[in-house]
């Protein structure tokens, strides 16, 4: 874990302990540090921007409710992301989200609305498609490793697989994405 991740982990832990002690303001610290990471983890499972947003909000509620159960010295970032992951999996199972072509198009439009550079938008949509070709577990591993900055051991702990396995799956997933993007660029 690099220095920034260590620092972030320590900050999150302090914030969770403060929340457990009744200081709700500490939630802001977690929000500032983890909001996009929570969202990314939810999105990697749900592949739906709006639902990932709902999960992100719900994660804060769960953090408030369960802060007392956090054990000092365990991995705070993993603890937070596991809440987002469990919520996402619950929603995914209950709603059986099937991403219809229509919804996908709507998402692309809403995604593009916030952007200005056409080239950037296209590149971004290609990355979205490259993530979409991965299976759910691969997508989670890639997101947790690249965006949330978790180590393979931590990812393995979250997903219930070995560190070696996460490494292999990560390599395979990134190779798949690279291959997909190269083929797109060649066209």
């Amino acid at each position, binding site marked *: 874990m690099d220095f*920034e991740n260590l620092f972030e982990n320590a900050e999150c832990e302090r914030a969770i302990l403060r929340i457990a002690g009744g200081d709700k303001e500490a939630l802001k610290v977690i929000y500032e540090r983890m*909001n996009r990471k929570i969202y990314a983890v939810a999105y990697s499972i749900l592949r739906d921007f709006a639902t990932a*947003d709902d999960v*992100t*909000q719900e994660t804060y509620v769960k953090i408030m409710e369960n802060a007392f159960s956090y054990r000092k010295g365990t991995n705070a970032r993993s603890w937070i992301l596991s809440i987002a992951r469990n919520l996402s999996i619950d929603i995914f199972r209950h709603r059986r989200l099937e991403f219809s072509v229509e919804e996908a198009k709507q998402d692309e439009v809403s995604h593009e609305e916030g952007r200005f550079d056409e080239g*950037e938008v296209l590149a971004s949509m290609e*990355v979205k498609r490259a*993530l979409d070709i991965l299976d759910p577990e691969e997508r989670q591993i890639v997101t947790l490793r690249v*965006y949330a900055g978790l180590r393979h051991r931590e990812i393995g702990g979250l997903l219930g697989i070995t560190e070696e396995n996460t490494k292999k799956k990560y390599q395979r997933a*990134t190779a798949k994405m690279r291959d997909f993007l190269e083929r797109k660029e060649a066209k």
Partner: protein
Amino acid sequence: MIEKKIRDFYNSLPVSDSFGETQEKPDKSSWLFGVCGAVAAMVALLVVLIKACLSDNADEDDENE
């Protein structure tokens, strides 16, 4: 760099702000600026102290002469 593309993609998503607004770009290492600021302040203080010491020594040398 596939990792950079993935990071850029997630950074580009318009995430709602739990506190009522739309979050702009992620907060990138604000603590780093704090650390750099503190280091810069310490260096500045050190320079002032060294200068003060040197000028004291120079004054003493002048007096000795």
